[in-house]
């Protein structure tokens, strides 16, 4: 999901060197990518295991060595797009001249200074008020949202293609058959489409003359073998046989890819392959395939997107029927689809989902999402005439007034040094937590700013908290401006 950001950064600053820090084994999409000058592979498992062991000092030694190597690079800018805790600590060690995104202060707390990173971190608290894909948010964090992305991302070399061509030849029984990719695994069970559904769809696809290659890692091989057992010789188990990078090359030979919300989905989309993406607990608005023309099949469940990792019913994924997916693969759309269907598209350079069929609850409030976006992009157009807008406006005004009260208590504390003022500040802050709707989003923004204030010097902390309140008020006022 970061390739379009690298592309935009490089196009904007042609002379700049771009290094990408990534965990070893997850660099598959970046290899040979023309917009990335250097891949820094982080051997997290190796270092972690050493730190956990009796020879933990060796682990810390390895970490220190890496930190020194990266310090010596004298990075002008470090952009932390990761939301993983240890990365926040790590980037703080690198002495970058400018750090964007979350970092850990020597005062002892995490800190997010830039507004778009705060927006990104606020989403889980107010998903209903965001319509932006994370890649579009990443581009805003990196300040390259005005640079358009090209149609393709991943670069594959001829020798890689040759190797996989031979692999295909050795596995495919019918040399004339086209290739379809099935990727039945996912990071957790709730995101997986039932294997019976893959089998049912697979039978139809094979009848149409395709060979199905089933991708995945070694842990997902049992799923692939079950498919092979049911589908026969025109189903090939590639799980555990190919690396992530090799799987990407394999996808390049395919006609289409059926997958849930996975890294393979993003890779296939980046190769301009037709992706049939199956979404259940996660949100295609935020993490759908970031290229045009892909189809998203979205399970119907009134709790979506719940992000639940241990759902017992898995209603959403079950509700996506093989018949419906097949009908779209064949381009003869099911007139009564079992699930909601969206097509990925771009409007003015921003990813959007075009609704083909929607009976379930929408993923976001269009008016609400435009308001939160306008808070950082003042030229965003918002429909101010609707009843919903009026309600969101009034709630937001209430929020601004509450933050003003919080500010007054902080000023009073500075003037009189009475701890009662801090208690009252906390009381108003607490009351905002109970304020629902769009205020959940505003409250997250406010708290991210307040939590970023260094606490070592109490008086400075109070002054910086006032600035945090002011910034939040100004942001919401921009959102509500005509």
């Amino acid at each position, binding site marked *: 999901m970061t390739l379009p950001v690298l592309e935009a950064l490089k196009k904007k600053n042609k002379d700049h060197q771009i290094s990408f820090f990534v965990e070893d084994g997850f660099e598959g999409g970046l290899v040979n990518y023309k917009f990335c000058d250097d891949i820094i592979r982080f051997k997290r498992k190796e270092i*972690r295991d050493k*730190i956990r*062991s009796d020879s*933990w000092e060796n682990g810390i030694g390895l970490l220190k060595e890496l930190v020194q190597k990266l310090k010596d690079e004298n990075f002008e800018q470090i952009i932390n797009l990761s939301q993983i805790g*240890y990365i926040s600590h790590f980037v703080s*060690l690198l002495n970058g001249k400018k750090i964007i995104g979350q970092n850990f202060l020597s005062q*002892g707390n995490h800190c997010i200074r830039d507004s778009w990173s705060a927006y990104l971190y606020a989403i889980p608290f107010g998903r209903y008020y965001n319509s932006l894909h994370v890649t579009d948010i990443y581009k805003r964090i990196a300040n390259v949202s005005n640079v358009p992305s090209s149609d393709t991302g991943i670069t594959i070399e001829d020798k890689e293609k040759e190797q996989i061509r031979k692999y295909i030849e050795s596995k495919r029984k019918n040399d004339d058959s086209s290739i379809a990719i099935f990727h039945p695994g996912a990071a*957790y*069970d709730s995101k997986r489409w039932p294997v019976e559904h893959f089998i049912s769809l697979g039978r139809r696809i094979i009848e149409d003359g395709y060979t199905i290659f089933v991708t995945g890692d070694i842990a997902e091989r049992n799923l692939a073998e079950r498919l092979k057992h049911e589908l026969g010789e025109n189903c090939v188990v590639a799980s555990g046989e190919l690396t992530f990078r090799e799987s990407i090359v394999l996808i390049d030979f395919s006609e289409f890819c059926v997958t849930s919300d996975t890294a393979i989905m993003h890779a296939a989309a980046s190769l301009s392959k037709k992706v049939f993406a199956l979404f259940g607990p996660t949100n295609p608005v935020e993490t759908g395939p970031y290229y045009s023309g892909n189809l998203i099949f979205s399970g119907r469940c009134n709790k979506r997107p719940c992000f639940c990792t241990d759902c017992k019913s898995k209603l959403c994924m079950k509700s996506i029927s093989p018949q419906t997916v097949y009908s779209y693969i064949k381009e003869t759309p099911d007139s009564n689809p079992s699930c909601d269907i969206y097509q990925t598209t771009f409007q003015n350079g921003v990813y959007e989902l075009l609704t083909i069929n929607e009976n379930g609850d929408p993923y976001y409030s269009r008016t609400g999402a435009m308001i939160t976006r306008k808070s950082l992009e003042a030229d965003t157009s918002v429909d101010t005439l609707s009843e919903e807008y009026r309600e969101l406006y009034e709630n937001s005004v209430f929020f601004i007034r509450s933050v003003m009260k919080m500010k007054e208590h902080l000023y009073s504390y500075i003037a009189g040094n009475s701890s009662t003022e801090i208690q009252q500040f906390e009381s108003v802050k607490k009351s905002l937590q109970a304020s629902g709707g769009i205020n959940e989003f505003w409250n997250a923004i406010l708290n991210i700013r307040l939590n970023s204030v260094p606490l*070592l010097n109490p008086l400075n902390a109070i002054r910086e908290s006032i600035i945090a309140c002011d910034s939040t008020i100004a942001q919401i006022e921009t959102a509500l401006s005509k």
Partner: protein
Amino acid sequence: MEKKDLFKLIEEVKKKIGKELLSDEELLLLTAFEISRTYTYEEKKNLL
């Protein structure tokens, strides 16, 4: 040094948080501690 010494060091660093500025060495220890608590993609999948 034995393994327990690392956690002792981490506890000492944590006690400083909010009271004094952390040195680069202390930040490195905190980073190491955070890394020690992570899981790989495969481990997470097995846990879930």
